[in-house]
């Protein structure tokens, strides 16, 4: 019995939180299968690696931006901060002769510093996040160009001794075997981010701040600190994204990165993160990112060029948010039970009771009970549909009457 109860609870829970959580992954799987059937050579290891490669850097910054969006803010600077950090790291390695490992650490430090800067502006100086990070977006783009002297920075290629860091994101075996190790790094980052968001004080407070900042403050929560931390994390993940970008693309051009932030935000939104704050998940964001990169790799396999990708990504973003709105509205609607509904509920409960009784009986008795049960089911169905029908006609009648009354009423008003 207790097992049945638990299963039921699980079922309800899945239904409650379900829809949203399973909708995005289901969309991803369907999309993947769709391209597999209609695209050329889509079901191949190469295109899988391509999908994964295409999502590293967006994936990292999308994870960071998810933190910020959950606080109810927005970070428009992640794309350019990422590229700024990458080009500064590249310049440090190439022009200043820094060792590779130090250059990589510099990348992380630069990006985190920008996150900290955003955090100060938003949480202490109370600038609107949109404005603060818009400013940082431009500043970081400028800083990258200034420090690199508007020259592109080239990271060492794989064969050079300092090319080791590339294996972190893509391992090439001797026999031409490619292992997308970057995927593992992304997943590990996502798991850490997930743990922070759901299992630590920081995560809980980030949700609390996003859901109702004033209530959190009046509960004695250090709102400034946790809001700041969200931006710092966003900066840090932009740094990781910068290393991933350098590893995959080798050459970093100055003044790049504009537009990446919008893909990151789109990924978070497709994954169910609410721009009004308080709602969101890291894995949802990852799914969102992969939906976009599947489109990116899948559409060319159907001979549709890259610009179709942006088109369809736009459609997906709007569709995802619309669906979410509709679903939330449905969920918050108050259902009024009509007599027919009440009847069905009580009868269903009766059936459940009978089932339990049957499981205790055996042989002929059980058979007899089973017959009773079937008869009852048929009866319920008939009565219910009859009641529903009556209710519907009644409702239509009332509605028509009221409509007529309103119409007559307005005519009278006009007549006056």
């Amino acid at each position, binding site marked *: 019995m207790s097992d049945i109860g638990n299963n039921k609870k699980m079922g309800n829970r899945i239904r409650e939180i379900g829809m949203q959580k399973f909708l995005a992954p289901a969309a991803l799987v369907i999309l993947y299968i769709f391209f597999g059937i209609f695209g050329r050579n889509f079901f191949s290891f190469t295109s899988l690696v391509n999908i994964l490669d295409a999502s590293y850097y967006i994936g990292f910054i999308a994870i960071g931006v998810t933190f910020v969006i959950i606080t109810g803010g927005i970070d428009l600077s992640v794309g350019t901060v990422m590229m700024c950090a990458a080009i500064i790291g590249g310049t440090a390695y190439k022009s200043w002769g820094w060792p590779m490992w130090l250059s990589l650490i510099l990348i992380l430090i630069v990006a985190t510093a920008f996150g900290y800067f955003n955090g100060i502006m938003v949480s202490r100086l109370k600038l609107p996040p949109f404005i603060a990070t818009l400013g940082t977006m431009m500043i970081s783009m400028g800083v990258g160009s200034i420090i690199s002297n508007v020259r592109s920075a080239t990271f060492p290629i794989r064969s050079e001794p300092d090319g080791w860091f590339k294996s972190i994101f893509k391992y090439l075996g001797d026999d031409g075997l490619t292992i997308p190790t970057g995927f593992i790094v992304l997943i590990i980052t996502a798991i850490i981010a997930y*743990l922070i968001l759901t299992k630590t004080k920081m995560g*809980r407070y980030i949700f609390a701040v996003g859901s109702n900042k004033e209530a959190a403050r009046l509960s004695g929560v250090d709102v400034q600190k946790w809001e700041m931390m969200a931006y710092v994390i966003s900066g840090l993940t932009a740094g990781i994204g910068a290393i991933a970008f350098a590893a995959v693309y080798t050459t970093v051009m100055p003044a790049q990165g504009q537009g990446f932030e919008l893909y990151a935000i789109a990924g978070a939104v497709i994954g169910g993160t609410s721009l009004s704050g308080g709602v969101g998940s890291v894995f949802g964001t990852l799914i969102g990112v992969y939906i976009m990169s599947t489109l990116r790799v899948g559409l060319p396999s159907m001979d549709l060029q890259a610009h179709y990708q942006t088109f369809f990504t736009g459609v997906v973003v709007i569709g995802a948010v619309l669906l979410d709105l509709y679903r939330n509205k449905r969920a918050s609607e108050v259902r009024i039970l009509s007599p027919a509904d009440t009847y069905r509920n009580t009868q269903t409960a009766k059936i459940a009771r009978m089932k339990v009784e049957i499981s205790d009986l055996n042989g002929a008795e059980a058979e007899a009970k089973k017959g009773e049960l079937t008869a009852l089911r048929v009866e319920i169905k008939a009565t219910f549909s009859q009641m529903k029908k009556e209710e519907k006609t009644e409702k239509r009648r009332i509605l028509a009457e009221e409509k007529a009354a309103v119409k007559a009423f307005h005519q009278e008003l006009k007549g006056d």
Partner: protein
Amino acid sequence: MNESVLSMKGIHKRFMGVHALKGVDFDLRVGEIHALVGENGAGKSTMMKVLTGIYEKDSGEIQFLGKLFHPHNPKQALSAGIGIIHQELNMMEHLTVAQNIYIGRETMKSGGLFLDEKGQNQRAGALFDRLNMNIDAQETLNRLTVGKQQMVEIAKAVSHDLKVLILDEPTAALTEVEIEELFTIMRDLASKGVAMIYISHRMDEIGQITDRVTVMRDGEYVGTNETSKITKEDIINMMVGRVIYEKPKVKSNVSADAEVVLEVSSLNAGRLVKDVSFKLHQGEILGFAGLMGAGRTETARAIFGADEIQSGTIKVRGVPVKISDPMVAVAHGIGYLSEDRKRYGLATGLSVIENSLMASYNKYETGLFIHAGKIRAITEEYVNKLSIKTPTIDQLLNNLSGGNQQKVVIAKWLINDAQILIFDEPTRGIDVGAKSEIYTLMNELAAQGKSIIMISSELPEILRMSDRIIVMCEGRVTGELDIEGSSQKEIMKYATMRENV
């Protein structure tokens, strides 16, 4: 004058688990001013929302101008001739008076291509003349006093050619002179045949301005009477009924030598906290009475560190503390339950467990992580203790009723082990059953040695719960009463004790 313009019969309205209107009747005659009274949560606002199409009734019948009437939205109601003026003003403060009045139906010229500001201002001016209001149509709204803004709102409503005007506590934020002006305008409107529904808690005003009074209680219709044939006491009796919770406390439960847990001296903060001093004893329920705008909430917020303090000292258990932020207050064991739960008390998009733990995650950390089992256990414990009605502790707060939401806020502070609790209007927007549960709970907490400050605008509530009463008026403490021998009359005397009188 006896012709009926509007009648509502047997109106029912249910919200999740709350039967807000239980077959209410209401009748309104042409040109009359009809008071609708009842305690908070009696269903007055719900009734008016049904009438103006904000809510749809579940059953019942509305007759308006002799015809069946069923508004589906406020716009429909307005175009039929039923308008409402809410307690809070709903206008755009950066626009001019005329722009506010004619928003959505602007005066146009050049064949509808351009706005005709001049013509519109003239129209507004003519409207004000007709209503005997002295307001400049070209003034930006936020430069007017609240009283004048309310006049503008009335003018706006009247410009729709209304048959019925609903005024929901219109005098709450007005000065006496402004109230007089408002009444003149209302009488003028009535003489022009507009019927008005006047919702108010102020008995004197009802006697002054209304023709008839309808009383509601707990979502039910109690009765209707001519104002001239009924006394203030009669109305109060009808409002209160025989509900037992109105019985005042006879004697304080706290001995005079109980430890002083909170001592506030000469506190000044902003406009509405002037030189406030008081002491709170262990295990005491200290009632804060006063009219709206007396500075009670502001005092609480200043003590809690939510607003800045200009001067004064606060001592917690004899130790002076500088409370610059709610964090500090919470660290000293103070908890604040706001009058506006949804804005300041709860994250309604989060679950019961997340709201309950909001002030106390620190206590349930093991290493880096929060102990999921422990926080579930403690939440379950308090959900049971406070009998919070929720299917699971993962339920989102916006799916709970007002009373249960309030209990979650209480759970938040109990889990935090707060010793000093400030309840600001603890039963606002809560139905009667849950109300007495909250009362019982507060008494239990006090008996356990927690010290409670209770701010309430309902005098029966103050008299029922408090061991001692502080009365405030316009930011100052004007009276301190022991529960023994105190009465509504005495409290009201202090609550209206203005400085220059």
